[in-house]
């Protein structure tokens, strides 16, 4: 472990013991730096929640064969995209046995377990974890560079060469540092989730899985008219059932999230899946969903920002990912800090390696590629018009109206488009945007 420069308490302060913070601390500590990870909860993960699926491939380089020890609930082998109207449901379902064996793909996990496990690796690498400690502000030198943090503990100032802010969505540190030029409620969604207990064998039976295989169902519609989406994830003996709601739409509609979940659970396509389940937990969290449109400046002299604090959450319809972006950005922040300390330059130029890594990898490449997706997915047409149009079209395609002959699909589409009130020009525009985003 290195000896910090005179007047400094350590080399690196990482704020926040989530996936980004732990990966940053792990990488920096493995390089021999004196790292302090500050977590406001009593243990890493105690304050964190998400929907429930993690894609840990990025960990391959950090923790080889992580799947042998990671606290996984179920390995996701079925991914379904469900489209709901009040009385209809259409599901595209995919299943792969390959996702149920190493090196796996996605998995359901509880954040208090996952984050605690990951922080344990950082600690084992030499990072010191200070829990129940809240960072209350930044310490700056005369030039404005960040040189440490204030905390809520007695004599609570801590000075370091560099601070990595992984303090989550609504990052107070990134805002205090001026890295966010503006914030807007339309950039955020509210994720709310019920954890419902069912016996493991009941979940296996209802979701057609076995041997810790799991299911990820993403839902368009079913949110009581509030722009957003729903989800159902299978844990070992619980289900995560929830909705993600666009904040301004939720406020305008004066709807209560728990009522929206209740309505979703009562849907004919969902009710049989959750019947008899016992509510164990209700939780909520704000999600940064606007992608590139809301991202802050990633560095300033003496400080980097990673994870949700940097709005690195991908919400692009069929892709809803956050933890992998957090882990990757934390990892790259750690690497950039090592590079900058070696070069003796912790200014913007010295820390530029962080943004370069983000740009050159999936972290920003996926966001750039899918930059139109969040707005498209949460648009009124996709949310309120297209589900009915598609569901009615499919219903008519499969309905047998003998003695009338089967109508042509083009005719059904034309009639249902008109019935849904969708202009052809809007449909073409959205289709083109969708193609450019997802194509």
């Amino acid at each position, binding site marked *: 472990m290195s000896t910090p420069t005179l007047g400094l308490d350590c080399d690196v302060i990482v704020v926040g013991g989530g996936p980004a913070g732990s990966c940053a601390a792990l990488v920096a500590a493995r390089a021999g730096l004196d790292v302090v990870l500050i977590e406001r909860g009593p243990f890493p993960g105690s304050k964190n929640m998400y929907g429930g699926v993690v894609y840990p491939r990025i960990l391959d380089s950090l923790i080889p064969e992580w799947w042998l020890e990671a606290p996984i609930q179920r390995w996701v082998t079925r991914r379904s995209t469900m489209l709901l109207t009040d009385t209809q449901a259409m599901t595209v379902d995919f299943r792969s046995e390959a996702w149920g064996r190493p090196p796996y793909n996605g998995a359901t996990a509880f954040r208090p377990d996952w984050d605690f496990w990951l922080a344990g690796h950082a600690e084992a690498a030499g990072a010191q974890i200070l829990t129940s400690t809240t960072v209350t502000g930044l310490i700056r030198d005369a030039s404005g560079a960040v040189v440490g943090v204030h905390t809520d*503990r*007695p004599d*609570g100032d801590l000075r370091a060469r560099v601070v990595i802010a992984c303090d989550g969505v609504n990052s107070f540190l990134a805002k205090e540092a001026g890295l966010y030029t503006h914030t807007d409620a339309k950039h955020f969604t509210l994720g709310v989730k019920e954890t419902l207990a069912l016996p493991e064998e009941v979940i296996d039976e209802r979701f057609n899985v076995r041997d810790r295989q799991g299911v990820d169902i993403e839902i368009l519609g079913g949110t009581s008219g509030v722009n957003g989406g729903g989800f159902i994830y299978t844990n070992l003996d619980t289900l995560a059932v929830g909705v993600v709601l666009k904040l301004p739409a939720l406020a305008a509609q004066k709807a209560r999230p728990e009522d929206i979940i209740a309505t979703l659970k009562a849907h004919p396509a969902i009710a049989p899946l959750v019947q008899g389940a016992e509510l164990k937990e209700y939780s909520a969290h704000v999600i940064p969903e606007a992608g590139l449109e809301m991202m802050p400046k990633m560095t300033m002299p003496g400080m980097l920002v990673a994870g949700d604090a940097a709005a690195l959450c991908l919400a692009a319809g069929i892709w809803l990912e956050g933890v992998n972006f957090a882990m990757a950005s934390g990892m790259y922040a750690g690497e950039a800090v090592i590079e900058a300390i070696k070069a003796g330059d912790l200014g913007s130029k010295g820390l530029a390696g962080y943004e370069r890594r983000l740009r050159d990898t999936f972290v920003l490449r996926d966001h750039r590629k899918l930059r139109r997706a969040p707005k498209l997915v949460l648009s009124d047409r996709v949310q309120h018009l297209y589900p009915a149009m598609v569901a009615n079209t499919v219903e008519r395609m499969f309905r047998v109206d003998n003695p009338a002959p089967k109508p042509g699909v083009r005719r059904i589409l034309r009639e249902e488009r008109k019935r849904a009130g969708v202009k052809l020009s809007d449909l073409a525009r959205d289709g083109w945007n969708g193609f450019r985003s997802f194509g």
Partner: protein
Amino acid sequence: MTIGSIVACLKWVAHPGEPNDERFAGMSPADQSALEFALQQGAAMGVGVVAVTVGPAGAERVLRDALACGVARAVRIHSARPMQSDDVAAAIAAVIPDATWVWCGDYSLDRGSGSVPAFLAGRLAAQQALGIISVSRSADGVIEATRRLDGGRRELLSVAAPAVVSVEGATAHLRRAGLAALRAAGKAPIEVVQSSTPAAPYDAVVHPYRPRARALAAPAGDAALDRLRALTDAGAAVSARGEQVTLEPAAAAAKIVDALKSWGYLA
């Protein structure tokens, strides 16, 4: 080993609701109070406080918490397996024979029999003050302590050293550790000594005694407050039940047992 005169006996306990999850383990509220009283006394007397625990290496976390709060030394008496209360007391007594003030939590969250302080006082031939809910120090070093009794009554004690004082939880709010101390505590050395008493096989789970539920008539009174008072005797002058006697310990114990039987607490 010479141990300082003020000792805080602490225990790292699993949370009763999550007995197998180390994330929820910690120091019992009563131990937190004991540590705070010990630190206050140490500051007043200008003496460093020594924190002692009995257990495996994982139990050192309670000592690191104590170090962060300001104890001068931390000693872990190694025991790889659970021990009976008397064995715990014997092991502690063996390393603190000259302690003048020993602070304990009244009972821990996990087993909560509250017997270690009593055994410890016996082993050290020290006075014991148990169930303490407030403490003040007089000029001559004697502790003025208030003890909780049944029926909302209080007993005022003057306790002179050497003494084992066990305090209830929430009677003192443990100070918040400073950041520098917290960091230093993570790397501070902890003295480890082997237990002087072999751990007898002990796998039983002991819970504090709880009297059986008894059917009670509905309380009298028109107002809710009256009914509450009737239920709890709060605010009422309760006539003393029992008698004050002076007996040798064995005879006193027998008399207490007889009284408990006559009141229906013991079969």
